[in-house]
């Protein structure tokens, strides 16, 4: 009874991947690390209010000359990756990529750094 099943899976295709060398690409709709295009942002604060986990807070930028308003700071440690911020952003300034390698030794790296530019070029994730 058990031998045919064992034989089938023994002779069949390998089901696991040698992880660091190869990894599976997620589905198209997978929601991973955010990209925040600061030049598109109009500082409306919708993302802050729509976030269910309060992972987004509006903070002033360090470079006050160039960016005088407040901008969302996304904390991936609190984020549940629901993509409501992406959905309701009026200017598409927040986008979720399919990058799921979020493990880090430093908590501060989980704060999404703003990306300059409009996002038409390939997104640079940090």
């Amino acid at each position, binding site marked *: 009874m058990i031998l045919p099943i064992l034989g089938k899976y023994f002779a069949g295709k390998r089901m696991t991947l040698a992880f660091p060398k190869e990894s599976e690409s997620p*589905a198209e*709709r997978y929601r991973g690390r955010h990209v925040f295009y600061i030049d598109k942002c109009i500082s409306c604060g919708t993302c802050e209010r729509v976030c*269910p986990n309060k992972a987004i807070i509006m903070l002033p930028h360090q470079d006050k000359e160039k960016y005088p308003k407040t901008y969302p700071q996304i904390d991936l440690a609190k984020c*549940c990756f629901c993509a*409501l911020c992406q959905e309701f952003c009026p200017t598409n300034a927040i986008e979720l990529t399919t990058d799921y390698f979020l493990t880090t030794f430093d908590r501060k790296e989980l704060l999404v750094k703003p990306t300059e530019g409009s996002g038409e070029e390939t997104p640079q994730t940090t």
Partner: protein
Amino acid sequence: MAITRTDAYVIPFGPAHPGSGNFRIWLTVDGERVIKARAEPGFLHRGFEKLMEYRTLLQNAVLADRICILEPLSWDLVFAMAAERLQGIEVPERAKYIRVLLAELTRIQSHLIWFGVAGIAMGFDTVFKVALTWREEILRLFEEVTGARVYPTGYIRPGGVRWDLPEGFLERAEEVLLHMEHYIFELNDLFFENPSFVSRTKGLAVLPPEKGIELGASGPALRASGIPYDVRRDDPYLVYDRLEFRLVSREEGDALSRFLVGRDEVLESVRIGLQVIRDMPAGEYQVKVGPFVKVKEGEAYAHIEAARGDAGCYMVGTGGRTPYRVKLRGPSFTLLIPVLEYLLRGVEIADVPVVFWSLNHCPADMDR
């Protein structure tokens, strides 16, 4: 020297996770036999009912799938249905069909994990491995539609569903459903008709029908006791009244019949899924609901047949942006506390995990 008298003593079952799922039962045993069982819930309490009072409807839809780890889409569905009843939203036809398809896929994967974990409780490790491998096929479908394997983060939400089905999804879903039918037959040999499984579960922990109703059981556990109660038929929602399916029930009420009801339900779910794929209409998949929409004054209740039984959501609104009160009815609550305490009386210690897992429960939706 003969031992003339033994004292009853108390042993805990749980709350270490693999055997009991964040849940503890205090068993008073006399020798090998359990004479009294007392359930101790609360290890997984996260306070959803209170959390939902602080979130808007769309944020709550994201939260709702966290209620039960094994069937998040069912909980999304029941929350969305309660919110729609309160708001008076009519869902487009295509969204209803998508919801039924996903709800049935959720039921199949939840039952597979039930069989798998029950297998591991009885020493059938192969069943666990193969059932979880097969479940992976459904999780891949979920990832394609919702963007995540387990937590859809509010895919089914007030107003319909969040995105339309991807290109070619129905063909792939049909293929997976047909695979599931085949797998269940394969599992017959391995598990359901395996003599060592049958002899272990036959006649064990019988739940009489009147006791099942009195203690509030629902789902496969009640249907195995000869009461064919199913919300899909008795209070049809979405498009279940247009679909053809057989209501599985058995008379025996023992642990074996509970598993067999679960097995036959998977086959019925496959039938429902194939009908839905055949009849899937084109058109809109959602009605736009704003992120900060006001919850209307009034109250609403919706319930569905989740994989574990009758899951309900009661919502009161007072015109604010968040619901005033949300009450969730988890089917596992009645299964795990009164029913389990009743069933464990008189069984042997070695059979406790078998009885425990024969109920198809989820400690997460019991504690909420």
